[in-house]
């Protein structure tokens, strides 16, 4: 590649990757191809092609990464463990008296479910089936009902276990354990902001969703034991990591085992177990593949010295860090309209993360923020996967209504984002306590 500097080759490669991704090439192959060709351009054919062969093994065989299949398995087994209904019932009895009480109950039931599930789409599907009929029966606005389920489901990626946080940690080499613990509080803060929005909306316009009253304290307390299984799993995963008697991988295995036992107790059949395992295997291999292939691309960027150059360029340009940060938020919001979160993270982080670090932002904090941005992407049209899932379970609620239903929650998400940016302690304080 005569005449081109490594950084120019790097930029051309980044452009090529976006083009290939845009025309629908699978991101794993596009990233691998561009990375391989780039490495060959930079180091010659011999060295280049042999270098790419080192990466798939080296980057997949990683103890930290082995937590991923465990989290995925938890998600697939959670449905069979039948803990959704009782969580929703308990939340209804405790939060129903608020304006829009059933919607609020949905938010906290999803938050609880998030602790036994690693993927937002799973939460969306389960609660579209469980919570929407209840809300409609109680005369709730169907946009609100669909919107709260779709938006609530994005909490799943913040509250551990979360596959997205694991992927983030692997790419940028931050501690998975810290990330997972750090996601817990922002998840609850996010849920609280959703609650505020729902209560405000339904307070102003009671016809959207009326309070559900009439539960005695006795009835409330009697609903609590039903949530024990969820609390048990939360307790195991969270405290095992918080108190350090298990690594994330071990905590994941323990959590999966508990959900497995619950599912057996709830009557999961052998075929269902087989299916859950096979689906876990398929989703795992998908994530592993995209991780190592994107790391081929990242290696190419490293050889081109692009991230470092870009980072020092942005730092040297003396742009206020907050401005850079907000621009990055905007880029993620726009990309999130069209892209799947994992693909989006893997494509952007190699370049964005060095910039963020060079500006002095905390890597764990940014992980939480970026996962929140992914959550927004799961909701926004035209490709809002969680909205599609809700529509798929409830074809009677038009997609347009769902997209309108999530609007207040997008506002809430932006508010949460502003909160996390203004008060990073929301994320970091627990790390100071735990580590």
């Amino acid at each position, binding site marked *: 590649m005569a005449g081109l500097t490594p950084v120019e080759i790097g930029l051309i490669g980044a452009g090529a990757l976006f083009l290939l991704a845009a025309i629908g090439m699978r991101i794993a192959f596009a990233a691998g191809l561009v990375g391989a060709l780039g490495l060959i351009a930079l180091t010659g054919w011999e060295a280049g092609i042999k270098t790419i062969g080192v990466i798939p093994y*080296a980057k997949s065989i990683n103890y930290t990464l082995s937590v991923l299949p465990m989290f995925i398995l938890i998600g697939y087994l959670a449905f069979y463990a039948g803990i959704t209904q009782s969580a929703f019932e308990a939340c209804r009895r405790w939060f129903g008296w608020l304006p829009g009480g059933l919607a609020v109950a949905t938010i906290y039931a999803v938050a609880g479910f998030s602790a036994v599930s690693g993927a937002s789409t799973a939460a969306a599907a389960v609660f579209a089936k469980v919570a929407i009929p209840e809300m409609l029966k109680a005369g709730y606005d169907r946009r609100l009902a669909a919107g709260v389920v779709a938006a609530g489901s994005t909490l799943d990626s913040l509250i551990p276990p979360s596959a997205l946080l694991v992927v983030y940690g692997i790419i940028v080499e931050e*501690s998975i354990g810290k990330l997972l613990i750090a996601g817990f509080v922002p998840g609850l803060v996010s849920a609280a902001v959703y609650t505020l929005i729902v209560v405000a909306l339904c307070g102003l316009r009671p016809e959207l969703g009326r309070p559900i009253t009439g539960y005695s304290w006795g009835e409330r307390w009697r609903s609590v034991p039903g949530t024990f299984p969820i609390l048990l799993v939360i307790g195991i995963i969270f405290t095992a990591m918080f108190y350090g008697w298990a690594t994330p991988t071990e905590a994941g295995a323990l959590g999966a085992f508990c959900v497995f036992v619950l599912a057996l107790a709830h009557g999961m059949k052998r075929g269902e177990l087989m299916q859950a395992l096979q689906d876990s295997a398929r989703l795992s291999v998908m994530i592993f593949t995209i991780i190592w292939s994107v790391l081929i691309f990242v*290696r190419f960027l490293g050889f081109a010295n692009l991230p470092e150059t870009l980072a020092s360029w942005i730092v040297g340009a003396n742009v206020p860090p907050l401005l850079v940060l907000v621009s990055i938020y905007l880029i993620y919001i726009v990309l999130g309209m069209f892209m799947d979160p994992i693909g989006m993270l893997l494509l952007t982080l190699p370049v964005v993360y060095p910039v963020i670090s060079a500006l002095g932002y905390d890597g764990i904090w940014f992980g939480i923020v970026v996962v929140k941005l992914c959550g927004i992407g799961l909701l926004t049209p035209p490709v809002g996967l969680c909205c599609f899932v809700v529509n798929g379970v409830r074809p009677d609620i038009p997609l347009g209504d769902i997209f309108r239903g999530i609007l207040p929650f997008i506002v809430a998400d932006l508010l949460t984002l502003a909160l996390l940016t203004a008060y990073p302690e929301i994320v970091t304080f627990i790390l100071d306590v735990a580590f």
Partner: protein
Amino acid sequence: QGVVDGPKVAWKLATWGKPRAFTVGIETVKKHVETRSGGKFTITIGYESFGGPKELLDLLKVGALQATTMCSSYHPDKHPAYTALDLPFLPLPDADAQQRVHEAFHAHPFIQKEMAGWNGQFYMSGLLPQYEFIGRGNPPKTIADFKGMRVRAIGGIGDAMKRLGAVPTSVDATEVYTSMERGTVDAASFPSTYAHGSYKTYEVGKWFTENMAPGTQACPTLFNIDAFKALPDAYKALFDEAKPLAYDNLKAAYKEADDKFIPLFKKARLSFVRFGDAELAEFRRVGAKPVWDEWVAQMAARGIPAQELLDLILKSAEAKGSGARS
């Protein structure tokens, strides 16, 4: 010193982690070579951007890198004979002795042939300081106090600790702090003091062994043989020039780390454990000779002149004063 003339050459030298005492040597070499060549011979040091620590030998072999640092304990069977330097309780009291031994060892034909399999030739040692332990609970006074202690110790030090009755537990370096705080491990060994300093084990520990010196590991800088051959002689000479400077700066950096961290250890109220001669001899009786003998037996079975290599180490360790700088 003027500028030597020569063609434009760009080298990539891989390492990992963040810039720290260990990387002062290669940073010195980079600076010297670039200055003396008038910027024509550049060395880009990649902190993990060229590959993770376990990949680097492969990348050297395939020609993606012109130079790399590596630590033998990350992949012992890639160069079994070279692991001799990782044996526990080798008599390497200070950096000068270590430099003398490592340089002599690197000059041995069998070791050179082994590393040539990875297309590597030795440049210099990383002079990683002796490991020491920081731990929780009561400070160990005698060998008996190590019985049942869960220790983070890798490579040969792990083997030795097992013989002393401890339970070696594998914990990633970045997880040592938490593991020790939570009691998953009771004590951790790191190159002392600088790595204890960077992983902040002194914040969660209660005691620090000052002079146990259970061993260290070899983390040399290697050159790609072909890349080095292709250099003009004037550039090759720059590396010879740079080496003593790099060693001096490396030693100074480790010393500086000691000067910085020892007071911090004291401030953190670590109790400093200093073993007496009798105790140290006992450690060596149990943890050194038997491990060495086992290593020699295993390696000899694989056709490695193991006894000769071990003797070379012990002999050059004794040869005080002669050729401390090569």
